[in-house]
């Protein structure tokens, strides 16, 4: 498969990159690893006139701990995150998620954490070749008015299948976006628009700069289900965070279910129902897991493989396993 033509720009500094982005706006796409972008371009889903490569911007590749926060540069390769003791110890869910993304050839070199969060939503009716899509009417995401995943749907039902985003949302991460004239930090959960066509609240002149994870004595876990152990998107995944109190009760909980909706789903009510429960309260975990299944099932459509029924019932399993594993880590 060939790439459509484009011009390649290689800015040397972040300021230069932001200038270029401000000039070209929608005509430009940011190239970090390219493992998502280039595939979309090959399929004719995106046709940017210029690619702005972050290759030279080593200032965006770092992992550091600073006054109670872990800060990760958006262009940090997945392999660096997997190798980081800090992430393994203090943000285990992210470590587990990154290990599952792609295979060595993707992680080691090309894939970046920023790119993983910013990957566009997917749907197996939409993520197809030009030829496949040319044989039928365009769907919502393709600029048309119909949805092949759910009949009579008035909007796009594409699914966010990012491993990194689910884990980071469970960890309560914030992200920093920069443009030529502005810099803003927002909660990752607010970054999602729940619109399948434009899933991220990111302006065309903005660039993801940093991911900020709070460290406050909590433990986390990430579980996912996919067809293949490598190079595959999750069909269901769950990220969980638990903070124990001094009495070994749950002081704070966060449950996030991914690959079910148009964005990762933070289940606030179910999460707070775990507050005050004992760490070995398996029944409470089971209840929370089943409630997570019920809540997320309403968002899911049959568009990323496996049957809807199977995916829904596995939500409960993924959440339960993640809760159990987090509790185990705390006890150990």
């Amino acid at each position: 498969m060939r790439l459509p033509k484009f011009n390649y720009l290689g800015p040397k500094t972040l300021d230069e990159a932001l200038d270029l982005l401000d000039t070209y706006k929608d005509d430009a796409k940011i190239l970090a690893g390219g493992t998502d972008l280039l595939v979309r371009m090959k399929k004719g889903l995106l046709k940017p006139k210029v690619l702005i490569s972050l290759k030279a911007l080593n200032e965006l590749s770092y992992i550091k701990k600073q006054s109670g926060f872990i800060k990760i540069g958006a262009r940090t390769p997945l392999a660096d995150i997997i190798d980081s003791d800090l992430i393994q110890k203090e943000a285990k869910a992210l470590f587990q998620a990154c290990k599952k993304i792609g295979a060595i050839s993707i992680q080691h070199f090309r894939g970046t954490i920023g790119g993983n969060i910013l990957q566009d939503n997917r749907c197996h009716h939409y993520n197809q070749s030009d030829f496949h899509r040319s044989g039928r009417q365009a769907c919502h995401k393709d600029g048309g008015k119909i949805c092949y995943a759910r009949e009579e749907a008035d909007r796009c039902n594409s699914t966010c299948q990012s491993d990194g985003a689910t884990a980071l949302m469970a960890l309560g991460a914030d992200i920093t976006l920069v443009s030529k004239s502005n810099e803003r930090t927002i909660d990752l959960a607010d970054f999602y628009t729940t619109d399948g066509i434009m899933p991220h609240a990111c302006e065309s002149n903005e660039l993801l700069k940093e991911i900020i994870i709070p460290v406050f004595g909590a433990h986390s876990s990430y579980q996912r289900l996919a067809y293949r152990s490598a190079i595959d998107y999750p069909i269901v995944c769950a990220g969980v965070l638990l903070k124990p109190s001094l009495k070994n009760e749950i002081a704070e909980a966060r449950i996030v279910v991914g690959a079910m909706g148009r964005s990762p789903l933070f289940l606030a009510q179910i999460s707070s129902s775990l507050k005050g429960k004992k760490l070995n309260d398996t029944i409470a975990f089971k209840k929370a897991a089943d409630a997570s299944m019920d809540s997320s099932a309403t968002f899911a459509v049959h568009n990323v493989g496996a049957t809807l029924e199977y995916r829904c019932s596995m939500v409960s399993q993924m959440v339960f396993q993640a809760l159990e594993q987090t509790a185990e880590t705390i006890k150990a």
Partner: protein
Amino acid sequence: MATNISFLLNGDKISYEIKDHWTLLHLLREEMGLIGTKEGCGNGECGACTVIVDKLAINSCLYLAIDADEKIIETIEGLASTDGTLHPLQQSFVDNGGIQCGFCSPGMIMSSKALLDENPKAGHEEIKHALAGNICRCTGYVQILDSVEAARDKGGQNE
């Protein structure tokens, strides 16, 4: 837009005028005629296009040729000696039946080489992990894993 890049390909210094939208795979196969590296899915899912860039295995179908500037690149063509003697990994694939149709073999061998160059004592699980991004559609993976293990056990020497 055309850009001039230079890189080390299998030990030879190469200078080439490329277009911005070429992938490394396109440069190797279509322009330079090095058809040992295969194009399978073109999406980074199958690993048939694996080559080694600066000692790391990468999918050349998702690697822009322009990014290869100043890099050290190894492809399957660079493994055998000029007199035709196969690289120990290649010989091991032949000896242990790690090849059926051969389409996945260049990718499998390059992924294995990147691993064994970095860790000559890699265990079974590490080999499986390193080859997780490579798909074989003929038969299975047992002979392929056996081939890599046999090459590892011989410590990079042909018998």
